[in-house]
């Protein structure tokens, strides 16, 4: 069965890159450009995994993660961010505390992303 992955990111280049990468690994990809739209798709399309950015307009990623967890806690979430790590504003660390299974810093190696997805599904 083809796994369905929802990608939420306000950057079109990032959405496109992830789509093309996952397409090569036979995943079905649905994309959304902000958290609000992502949640709406999440409710209707019932994806098996969500990859979400953190810093986004309309609904930012941390709030999106809280909502995703509330709606379907068992769905793995991978948080991605282009911001720096460390300090009080380490959003990826906060995302992990909110329930993200994996975190990845942009720009990431596509193989690394695929490996993290596989590990989520293997768990």
């Amino acid at each position, binding site marked *: 069965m083809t796994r369905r992955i929802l990608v939420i990111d306000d*950057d079109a*280049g*990032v959405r*496109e*890159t*992830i789509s*093309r*990468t996952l397409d*090569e690994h036979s995943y079905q990809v649905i994309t959304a450009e902000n958290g609000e739209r992502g949640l709406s798709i999440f409710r209707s399309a019932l994806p098996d995994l969500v990859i979400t950015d953190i*810093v986004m307009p309309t609904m930012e990623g941390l709030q999106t993660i809280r909502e995703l967890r509330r709606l379907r806690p068992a769905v793995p979430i991978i948080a991605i961010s*282009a*911001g*720096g790590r*460390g*300090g*009080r*504003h380490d959003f990826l660390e906060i995302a992990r505390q909110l329930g993200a299974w994996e975190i990845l*810093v*942009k*720009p*990431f*190696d*596509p*193989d690394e992303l695929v490996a993290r997805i596989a590990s989520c599904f293997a768990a």
Partner: protein
Amino acid sequence: VTDPNSQGRAAPWRSSFRAHLTVLVVAVILPLAGLSFYSMTRLGDAEREMNRGQIISTARAISSNIDQQLLSAERNLRALTSTLPKVGSSLDDFYAHCRAIAQENGGWILLADPDGRQIFNTKRPLGTPLPIGLFITLKDVTELRAAEQRQRDLERQLQHGQKLEALGTLAGGIAHDLNNTLVPVIGLTKLTMKRLPEASRERANLAIILQAGERARDLVRQILAFSRNEAPTRERLDFAALVTDTLKMVRARIPATIHITETIASVPPMLGDSGQLHQIVVNLVVNAAHAIGDKMGVIAVTLAAAVPSAAESDGPAWIRLSVRDNGCGMDQMTQHRVFEPFFTTKPVGEGTGLGLSVVHGIVVQHGGRVCVESAVGSGARFDVYLPGLAGGERAQPNDAAEAAE
């Protein structure tokens, strides 16, 4: 008071006119000067000596005729100039004696006396409408100038801090967008490379793009490290071990023509962000290597317990990391700007101007400070001071537990 040198140089009528005016003015001035002199001499010599700083900060008056020959000089002028100028001697000689050092500007002259004190000098014409002489006051402004300098230094530090903060915010925003932009550059290049034959020209082209993308990614990481203004994570660590490990790693990045010497003493433990502290060592050593360039050279890395200044010897323990090189060195202007982000002396494309500003940012975030000593052609020495954990502060298990989380 006589005016011997003016005889024969001016026309007889002018000389006579001037002599009369001089006598008139001196007759007026001397009682006034005498009054001021009286107030000065009320203090005994011993007391005056004790209060030298106070006394010499009082204005001292001398008067001269229009040919700038001294008509009178207060005895206490000695406190400023070490010798009393002779009545009848020329002002030029007096100024030469005082070693005039600075600019003359609209009648204001800054002098420095033999023991290095700064003296402010004002000249006012005597007599209106026809000037017949000069009334000169001298004031010791050494303390005032020192206070002004301290004020300027503080303002410069404040401006530097504000500039770094503004640039940090700007750089953080740009770095975030650049990281997003680099996702397809790196991601899709890698993806496409996999589909191309190993030895193909297209794959080799993409490899170059990938390399450039990865270089940009590393650069952005540096910018983000610099722009991070929050307190670093704090874990208890042994800085000596961290420096030793980092030097092992960084050696591979330094040309074989450069020798690194290590003098690592055991230092007090400290709380810090090991990743960031590692970055300090790397940046300082790489910077030193760049200063040496292609020549043979030595980078001396020294770690010891040392206080930044004598005033802090009673405070908590301090750790000093010194990185000294025998490279090209820096002039004063470069030293002032060396920690500014994007300031670089390297050719365009070879330096980012971020390495040392990252060092500065990290050190300040750790509650430390960094200073530089250098001269053109004589290498440079960077001293990083970081606060260590003193005996009393060490016994706080809660802090350590929190830091470890």
